[in-house]
């Protein structure tokens, strides 16, 4: 039991290491991961300013720009990752190792959160400095709780998606693209999601990022422009439920996909 736990902890650290240490080894990442995403943030911010939108909207864009980094990390470095690692030959080495596959996914997630946090902080700091965004944090513990619950839920979604991509994603990047732009829109990355109408907004709240963003905005901005979907308390409860369901579903999906892959041989055949 203790040996299993230690092995899995080592596996989590081993897989996280690639992202924590390895990814920061290429200086070009600063350009691609921080400067380029900033252009999109700046673009939206300038449009809002040009339209004379409430000043909070500039803040929404900057905060969302930071959160987009996590969503992209989930799509490209979590959901599609097992598919790419199958092509590289890593997947079969994970599968024959005496560890839970969830440890590998957890390692990817922790490493991804760390790596992306640097990018997100870069965007947040630069955006705040350039546009002079003013934050009014009303409840720090709640903000930290919401942030970590959002991360737990969306990375749970990423783990779930990775199982599906692994087996069905012949061309994972197409599937990742499919989920990228619609989610930007539905989660209200650059505007309060309630602007989509209550029914659409509630349907969009099935994506945990929608709830997380809405709650974060309520906790760091004030005024009518925030236009919340639910109260923070409700959103925290929904995020807890989403975290539990998504992580449980990811575990089940992973086991099922592994069994299916072993039965059909598709897990170890490249180009499938």
């Amino acid at each position, binding site marked *: 039991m203790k040996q299993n736990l230690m092995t899995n902890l080592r596996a989590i650290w081993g897989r996280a290491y*690639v992202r924590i240490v390895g990814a920061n080894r290429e200086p070009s990442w600063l350009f691609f991961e921080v400067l380029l995403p900033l252009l999109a943030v700046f673009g939206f911010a300038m449009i809002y300013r040009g339209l004379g939108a409430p000043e909070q909207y500039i803040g929404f864009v900057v905060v969302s720009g930071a959160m987009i980094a996590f969503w992209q990390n989930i799509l490209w470095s979590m959901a599609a990752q097992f598919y790419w690692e199958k092509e590289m030959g*890593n997947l*079969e080495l994970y599968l024959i190792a005496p560890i839970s596959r969830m440890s590998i996914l957890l390692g990817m997630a922790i490493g991804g959160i760390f790596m992306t946090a640097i990018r997100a902080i870069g965007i947040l700091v630069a955006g705040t400095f350039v546009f002079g965004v003013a934050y009014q944090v009303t409840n720090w513990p709640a903000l930290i709780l919401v942030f970590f619950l959002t991360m737990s839920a969306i990375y749970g979604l990423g783990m779930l998606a990775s199982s599906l991509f692994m087996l069905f994603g012949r061309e994972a990047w197409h599937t990742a693209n499919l989920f990228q732009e619609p989610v930007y829109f539905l989660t209200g990355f650059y505007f309060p999601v309630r602007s989509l109408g209550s029914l659409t907004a509630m349907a969009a709240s099935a994506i945990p990022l929608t709830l997380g963003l809405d709650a974060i905005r309520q906790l760091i901005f004030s005024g009518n422009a925030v236009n919340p979907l639910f109260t923070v308390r409700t959103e925290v409860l929904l995020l807890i439920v989403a975290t539990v369901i998504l992580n449980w579903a990811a575990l089940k999906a992973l086991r099922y996909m592994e069994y299916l892959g072993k039965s059909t041989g598709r897990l170890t055949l490249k180009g499938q």
Partner: protein
Amino acid sequence: MEWAIETQDLRRTFRNRPVRRLLRRAVGGPVQDHVALDSVDLTVQPGELFGILGPNGAGKTTIIKILSTLLLPTSGRAIVDGLDVAREPESLRRRINMVSGGEHSGFGILTVRETIWMFAQFYGVPTKVAHARADAMMERLGLTEAADTKTSKLSTGMRQKMNIIRGFVSDPKILYLDEPTLGLDVGVAREVRAFISEWMHEHPERTVLLTTHYMAEADSMCDRVAIIDKGRVLACDTPASLKRELAPDCVYQIEVPLWTDGGNPLDELAVVRSAAMEHRGDQGRTHIRVILEDEAGIGAVTSRLAQRGARVLSVNRLEPSLEDAFLNLVGHGLSSGNGENH
């Protein structure tokens, strides 16, 4: 006796995808499942370096995938170190590891030392132990100078040396090596083989299952060899016994000028049991390895060659090899790479 590896009537078939089945049915083609393994019975003793020799597509990798818990058998059983691979995969995984030829595992951004360390973590090997083992093995395989090189910068040979260390670093009780010298040049292949043999010598209780389609590799390294073709085990014994029992005495190598007319000039000659041609364009020569029914047949062979306009440059009688045993048993040579890296 408890075997290190035992398969009982092992069978693995692959179903065609539904769309492919429909298409084949529509054009009146065959829709039956592909049989990758057919009633395979094998036993490997603890401490043995056991080889599986066969051409591409013979089922070698399928056996390894089943034994390493990556694939379920369609029927039959496979038991490794007393554990059923289908029923007790979690317990088994701690005792095994695997290295494949041409592997591109790991991450280009990590160094050699970090890559080996990372995979050691998946087996719970403490960092200090992992580094000590990796350093010792890198020293032996001449990889020490590349220890801090990113794996994306490695040559094929260096990468495979790293993969080999990756497989050994968890100190597995049973190691699967799936064509470990595939695509390597002569020198690196020799180093890898020497490393494996030394490791076996130093760890006599460990077992290695090696698949290869290099005859000389199987001949020189393995305690016993199973010859498989089309998913079936055709023979299983020590290389010496296989050669003695299966290789005929009358093996000749005949050298003629480069044969460009197509076909085999010795086809349908009654005294010839098999004839394999190897064209050496750079030398302007063709080597024909001929197995005859008896010695007297060599006259008929040289006459046939003369008739077909192939001037005989030399005739050498050869000692029977594992390749001859294979040819005699299977009826054809290996589809590619008959020892080009030796």
